[in-house]
């Protein structure tokens, strides 16, 4: 498989919300192309009627509907710096484009 185009790399990076520097985009196109080429061997395998193995185990285990104490809010928000908190709410950039500071 040929290198991935710059546009395709950028599209995937946007989907993955991954900022890439120009040099990274360049390298990524070539590396992904090489790795994908390696996958060609899979395409040649006849998998007609072969089920997909999504799980190594398919035994169902269900949880009883029992409430356990919540994480204390200070623990729940312990990963946040003070400026990313407003009381016990998490502060994030505005979800409405154009409303950001």
């Amino acid at each position, binding site marked *: 498989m040929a290198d991935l185009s710059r546009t395709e790399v950028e599209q995937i*990076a946007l989907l993955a919300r*991954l900022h890439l520097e120009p040099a990274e985009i360049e390298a990524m196109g070539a590396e992904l192309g090489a*790795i994908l080429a*390696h*996958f060609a061997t899979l*395409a040649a395998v006849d998998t007609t009627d*072969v089920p997909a193995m999504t799980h190594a185990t398919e035994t169902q285990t269900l949880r009883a509907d029992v409430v356990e104490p919540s994480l204390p809010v200070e623990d729940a928000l312990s990963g946040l710096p003070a400026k990313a908190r407003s009381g016990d709410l998490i502060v994030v950039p505005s979800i409405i484009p154009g409303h950001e500071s």
Partner: protein
Amino acid sequence: MSVADPKGLAYWTVADTARRVAAGEVTAEDVVEQTLARITEHDATLGAFLEVDASGARAAARLVDQKRAAGAPIGPLGGVPIALKDNLVTKGLVTTAGSKILAGWVPPYDGAAAERLRAAGAILVGKTNLDEFGMGSSTERSAYKPAKNPWDTSRVPGGSSGGSAAAVAAGLCAASLGTDTGGSIRQPAALCGVVGLKPTYGRVSRWGVIAFASSLDQVGPLARTVADAAALLQVLAGHDPRDATSLTAPVPDYGAALAGGVAGVKVGVPKEYFGPGIDADVRAAIDQVIHQLRDAGAAISEVSLPHTGLALPAYYLVAPAEASSNLARYDGLRYGARADAPDLLQTYMRSRGAGFGPEVKRRIMLGTYALRSGYYDAYYRKAQQVRTLIKRDFDAAFREVDVLLTPTTPAPAFPLGSVSSPLDMYLADVFTLACNLAGLPGLSVPAGFTPAGLPIGAQLLGKPLDEAMLLRVGSAIEGAVGLADRHPEAFA
């Protein structure tokens, strides 16, 4: 044995340490102090640890000693110093998975592995180095520092549990835990000359395992002896309702299996694992093991796993696809590093762009590529179908034999910085991946050394939930090889 003799203590087995602490021959505090001293002395060279929890270890040791003094049970691992790979969540102790994106993150909860070890009296001495999020085979992809191989510090310890393997090999802890997604316990165990066990998928809880590829990840021990690995598995194994993929099957007595011997055991040697790519020293060592097993009464036969060659491409679709999903939570909004950016989209892009290293980015990109609508069937689904074929190969083989024997890696440890292309690095796991895809247990046990003094590992693969068979055969190999007392000179 005097505690003033750090050399002796450093290489005590898990069972030795536990017995001596329980008998009062040594205090847990002494064990911990000696261990911490060794870490201080050697880890600057090795880079095996990302975080050493001296105060937590001392407090835990005091507790063990107090319990013993009070006549209370101290647990099967009472006073045994153990290190955890840093992708295992530990309450109150920084856990980064080797990534900048989790720099300084202090978990508010304990994972199942930490819980069970603590409950068994083990002393958690620190968190070991790894390739970022477990993605790598050399521990060079750690965002913090590379780890080194104790047998030759110019070489890699393998990965991604390289820190855990190096720490055990160099006597910086009695045993350690790693995680294995495509060989990340067995490959570094082989390269560092220790025992590494990847249990059956679902045998050990994944609660608190920072996910790389959820359908493949499994926690397991790295230890200096097969018996030690068994002792740790005994503590780790068992159902956990918080992990929906955790198995409910009862846990056997693994220690009891060790002395079973191999007389009459049917050992299959899959011919696909002995192709031209394999290093001559590795080949010779495994051949030697085969002879030894035959001499001990095992029935050796050649078997075929025809889809072996497809494991690598299947793995490198399944694992990155799941990883791209598992790593979506690292967005800097609730924990971890948040980039200063003008808007929400850029906050996501910049936090993730700055927080993840190159290999992680590559796999996120690969996984995102493969899961896109219109590509899913051709890539992810196809890989999962091939997974079924690989599983069927094993099912067929295990109708004929009890256990499979292969080299753990095609070659011994390679020099730091010598493998630059991602694809070449992926080849380091070529013999270990299929086991994860099929959800089987796998054990790497030392099989000898190259003339240059680099360890070689033999891999045993077993039927689902038949860890006991692996430990039994592994123990026989360990006895036959007779090198369990050999330790790297620089860390004597």
